[in-house]
C-alpha cells in the first residue's frame, strides 16, 4: 500500500498556526506512507496537478489531503484522484483548518493535533475499499412547497424549462405575503399588479398542477424518487362547481370570522374568498366560525349558491404524487404583538402591525384603501411607526434583523402622506438599514420629500389619553424624552419562521436553526441547496428576505432542479450498508431498526435466512451496523474496521 499525504498551507490559514513542514515530515514516518509533501494551495489547479503527478510518479494507490473541512472540498479531491485513475473512495481528507488551525492558538499543540488528524486519515484510507455507484432513474417532476412569490417563481421557471410541477399551498389562495402588500419599495410599484400576472401564469401553465388549501402529510423516498402524500383540507365547497361569484360571502350571516388574509385587520364572513385576485378564486368555509358547524344550523350559503357547490359533509382527502425534487418556499411568519405589554398591543385597537396597516392602505383591503383608526373608523392625522418591535432583541430570542421592516416603514410613511396629505408620520428607529439598490435614496425621500420625522430611539410606553395614544420614547440623538400624541401606532413586528416550520423540516429531513429558519448547505456558495440532496430552498423560509431576494432564490432553486434533471439517470451514493451472508445469523434486528425500511428478509438457496439491503433505498446512516450483534452488516466507507482504525490511531500511538 502506498499512501500519498498532501498537507495544504491554505495560504496562512493553516500554515499560520500549524507547522506544515513538520506535519509532512511526521507523515513520512507513518507506516504505509510513500510520499508526503506540503503545498501552498492544494485545491488550486497546480495543487491538484501535484496530486495527480505524484500518484503517477510514486505509484500511489491511496491519497490523504490534510486541508479544510471535507464538507468543503471532499468532492474536489475525489475528482482529482479519479482523474489519476484511482477509485474516488481511495481518498480521505484530514480537517486541519476548521478543526485545528482556526480554533487553536498554540502552534506546537496545533501541529501535534494536525499530525494526529493525518495519522487517523492515513489509517482510515488504508482500509478503504473501492466503491462504485449504480445509476437509477429520475422522476422529472418537482414539488414546490408554498405559493408565495419565491415558490411561484420557482414553479414558473421549472415549468418553462419543461418540468412538471406540483405546487402545494396551505392557504386557499396562492400569492403569499406579497399578495397582501399594497405597494413595493423602492419603486412604489403596485404589488398585486406585478404579482397578479405571475399568479395567473401559475394557474394557467399546462405543466403546473396546483393543490391549494393542502398540506404535506408525508414525504418518503430520496432524490429522484420521492413519494409525497398531500392532505387536501376540506373547504366544504366543491371547487369544481364554485365559480367564485361571491354570493355566499355576501349572504353569510356570520360577520365576525377571523380574516387570516388580512391578519385580523377587520373581521370577515365565515365563508369567504380571501381577496379579489385570489387564485384559485374559490370560496372556503371556516368551520371555527360557520354557524352550520358551531350551532349545527344555518345553511344560508347552501341555499344561495347558484351552482350547489356547498358541501358541509366534505372530508379531507389524501392524494399521492411522485416527484424527483422538492423546492421548499414556505415563507415566514410574524411575531405576535400581544407580548409587547408596554405598547399595549392587543389591548388598544389603535396599536396595529405593519401588515395590518398595509391592508388598510390596500384598495382591496377591508377599508377599500382608506386609512382608518380601528377604534372609531376616523381618519388618523398623526401616525407613529415603531421599528424593531421584537427584532434585534436577544431577550425575545430574536437576535437577528428582520431585513425589510426599515424599508416597508419608509414606504408606508410615504403612502400615508399620499393618502392623507395633512398627516404627519413619525418613525422611531434603532438604525435605518437600507442596503439594497435604491433603498437608501428611498428612506431619504420619505424624510426629505414626504416629511416623515425620524426619531432615533426606542419607545418605552404607549398609553391612551382621550382619543389619542401617547407614545413616550427617547430621542437618543438629542438626548431627550419625547412624547407624541398619535392617532394610530404601527408596529414593525419581527419576522419569525413560519408556523410549523420545524415539523416541515423534519418531514423533509433538512436542518433548521434555533429560530426555525432552514439551514442552507453553505452560507456563501450553496445558498439554495440543503444537505439533503434533492431538496432546495427559496425565499424567507431560509431567513428574512425581501421580494427581489426571494424571486432570485426561486429562480436559483429552479435552475438547480433543472440541472439535476438534465440527466436521465442519477448516480447513487455507494456508501451504503452491505450484508456479509456468511456471518449474518438472520436475527433481522437491522430490519426493525432501519429508519428507511431499506433492509428486508431474504432466503438463500440453502434455506438460510439473511438480511438484504435494498440499494436504492438505503441512505447510509449506519444504524444497522451498530445494531448488528455479529458485525455482519457493515456500512461501506464507515465500517467497524475503518472507524476502529481511527480510534486506534489516536489511542494507541
Amino acid at each position: 500500500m502506498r499512501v500519498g499525504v498532501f498537507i495544504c498551507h491554505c495560504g496562512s490559514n493553516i500554515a499560520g498556526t500549524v507547522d506544515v513542514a513538520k506535519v509532512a515530515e511526521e507523515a513520512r514516518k507513518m507506516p504505509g506512507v510513500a510520499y508526503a509533501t506540503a503545498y501552498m494551495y492544494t485545491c488550486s489547479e497546480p495543487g491538484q496537478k501535484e496530486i495527480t503527478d505524484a500518484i503517477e510518479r510514486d505509484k500511489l494507490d491511496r491519497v490523504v489531503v490534510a486541508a479544510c473541512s471535507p464538507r468543503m472540498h471532499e468532492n474536489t479531491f475525489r475528482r482529482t484522484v479519479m482523474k489519476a485513475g484511482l477509485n474516488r473512495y481511495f481518498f480521505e481528507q484530514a480537517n486541519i483548518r476548521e478543526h485545528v488551525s482556526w480554533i487553536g492558538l498554540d502552534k506546537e499543540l496545533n501541529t501535534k493535533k494536525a499530525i494526529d488528524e493525518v495519522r487517523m486519515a492515513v489509517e482510515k484510507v488504508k482500509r478503504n475499499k473501492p466503491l462504485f455507484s449504480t445509476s437509477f432513474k429520475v422522476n422529472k417532476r418537482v414539488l414546490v412547497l408554498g405559493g408565495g412569490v419565491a415558490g411561484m417563481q420557482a414553479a414558473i421557471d421549472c415549468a418553462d424549462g419543461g418540468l412538471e410541477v406540483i405546487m402545494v399551498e396551505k392557504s386557499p389562495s396562492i400569492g403569499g405575503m406579497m399578495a397582501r402588500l399594497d405597494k413595493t419599495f423602492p419603486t412604489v410599484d403596485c404589488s398585486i399588479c406585478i404579482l397578479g400576472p405571475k399568479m395567473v401564469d401559475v394557474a394557467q401553465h399546462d405543466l403546473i398542477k396546483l393543490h391549494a388549501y393542502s398540506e404535506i402529510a408525508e414525504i418518503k423516498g430520496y432524490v429522484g424518487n420521492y413519494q409525497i402524500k398531500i392532505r387536501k383540507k376540506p373547504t366544504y365547497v366543491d371547487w369544481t362547481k364554485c365559480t367564485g361569484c361571491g354570493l355566499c360571502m355576501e349572504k353569510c350571516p356570520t360577520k365576525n370570522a377571523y380574516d387570516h388574509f388580512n391578519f385580523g385587520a377587520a373581521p370577515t364572513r365565515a365563508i369567504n374568498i380571501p381577496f379579489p385576485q385570489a387564485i384559485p378564486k374559490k370560496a372556503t368555509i371556516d368551520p371555527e366560525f360557520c354557524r352550520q358547524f358551531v350551532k349545527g344550523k344555518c345553511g344560508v350559503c347552501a341555499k344561495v349558491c347558484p351552482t350547489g357547490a356547498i358541501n358541509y359533509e366534505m372530508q379531507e382527502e389524501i392524494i399521492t404524487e411522485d416527484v424527483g425534487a422538492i423546492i421548499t418556499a414556505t415563507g415566514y411568519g410574524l411575531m405576535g404583538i400581544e407580548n409587547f405589554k408596554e405598547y399595549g398591543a392587543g389591548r388598544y385597537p389603535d396599536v396595529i402591525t405593519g401588515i395590518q396597516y398595509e391592508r388598510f392602505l390596500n384598495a382591496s383591503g377591508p377599508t377599500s384603501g382608506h386609512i382608518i383608526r380601528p377604534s372609531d373608523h376616523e381618519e388618523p392625522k398623526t401616525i407613529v411607526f415603531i421599528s424593531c418591535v421584537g427584532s434585534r432583541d436577544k431577550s425575545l430570542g430574536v437576535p437577528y434583523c428582520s431585513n425589510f421592516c426599515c424599508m416597508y416603514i419608509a414606504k408606508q410613511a410615504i403612502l400615508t402622506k399620499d393618502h392623507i396629505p395633512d398627516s404627519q408620520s413619525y418613525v422611531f428607529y434603532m438604525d435605518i438599514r437600507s442596503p439594497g439598490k435604491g433603498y437608501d435614496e428611498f428612506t431619504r425621500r420619505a424624510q426629505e420629500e414626504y416629511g416623515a420625522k425620524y426619531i432615533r430611539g426606542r419607545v418605552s410606553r404607549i398609553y391612551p389619553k382621550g382619543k389619542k395614544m401617547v407614545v413616550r420614547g427617547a430621542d437618543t440623538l438629542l438626548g431627550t424624552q419625547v412624547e407624541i400624541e398619535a392617532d394610530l401606532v404601527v408596529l414593525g413586528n419581527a419576522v419569525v419562521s413560519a408556523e410549523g416550520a420545524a415539523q416541515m423540516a423534519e418531514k423533509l429531513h433538512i436542518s433548521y436553526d434555533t429560530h426555525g429558519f432552514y439551514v442552507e448547505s453553505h452560507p456563501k456558495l450553496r445558498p439554495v441547496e440543503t444537505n439533503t440532496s434533492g431538496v432546495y430552498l427559496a425565499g424567507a423560509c431560509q431567513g428574512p428576505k425581501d421580494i427581489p431576494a426571494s424571486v432570485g432564490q426561486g429562480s436559483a432553486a429552479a435552475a438547480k432542479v433543472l440541472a439535476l434533471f438534465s440527466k436521465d439517470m442519477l448516480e447513487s451514493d455507494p456508501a451504503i450498508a452491505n450484508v456479509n451472508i456468511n456471518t449474518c445469523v438472520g436475527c433481522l434486528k437491522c430490519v426493525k431498526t432501519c429508519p428507511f425500511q431499506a433492509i428486508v428478509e431474504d432466503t438463500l438457496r440453502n434455506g438460510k435466512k439473511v438480511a438484504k439491503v435494498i440499494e436504492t433505498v438505503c441512505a447510509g446512516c449506519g444504524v444497522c451496523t451498530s445494531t448488528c450483534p455479529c458485525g455482519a452488516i457493515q456500512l461501506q466507507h464507515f465500517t467497524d474496521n475503518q472507524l476502529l482504525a481511527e480510534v486506534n490511531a489516536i489511542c494507541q500511538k
Partner: protein
Amino acid sequence: MSEVASKELRIVGFLCNWCSYGGADTAGVGRFKQPTDLRIIRVPCSGRVDPMFVVRALITGADGVLVSGCHPRDCHYTDGNFYARRRLEMLKRLLPFLGIDGKRFHYTWVSASEGQRWQQVVTDFTKQVHTLGPMHQK
C-alpha cells in the same frame, strides 16, 4: 515528552456528518477558540456510533470520549439519533461497572449552525476531563 504535550489529554470525539461536524466547522470558521485535546472522527450519524467504540477508546488510551449528533427530531436520517440516545444513555450508566468514571463520557446535540454552542461543549467537556486527570499511566 515535552511539557506542553504532557498537559494535553486524549479526547476522542464522534461527530455526525450533518449536524455536529458542521457545527464544529462553523465554530472553526467563526474562529471560536477551543482547547486542542479533542480529536474528531466523522461518522454519518450518531446512530452509527457503536457503544463499543467508546469503550474501546477509553480502555485503550483515551481519557474522555464525546459523541455529538443532531438535535432529537432533527436527524438527517429521521431517527438515528434516537437510537444513539438510547444506546449512549445506557452506556453512560454501564461505564462505572467497568471501572470507568461516567464523567469521562458525554453525549450531546449540536446543530450545524451552533458554532458557539460547539465551542462551549468542547470547552466544558475538556475541562471536565482535565479535572478527572489522565486515565492511563503513561
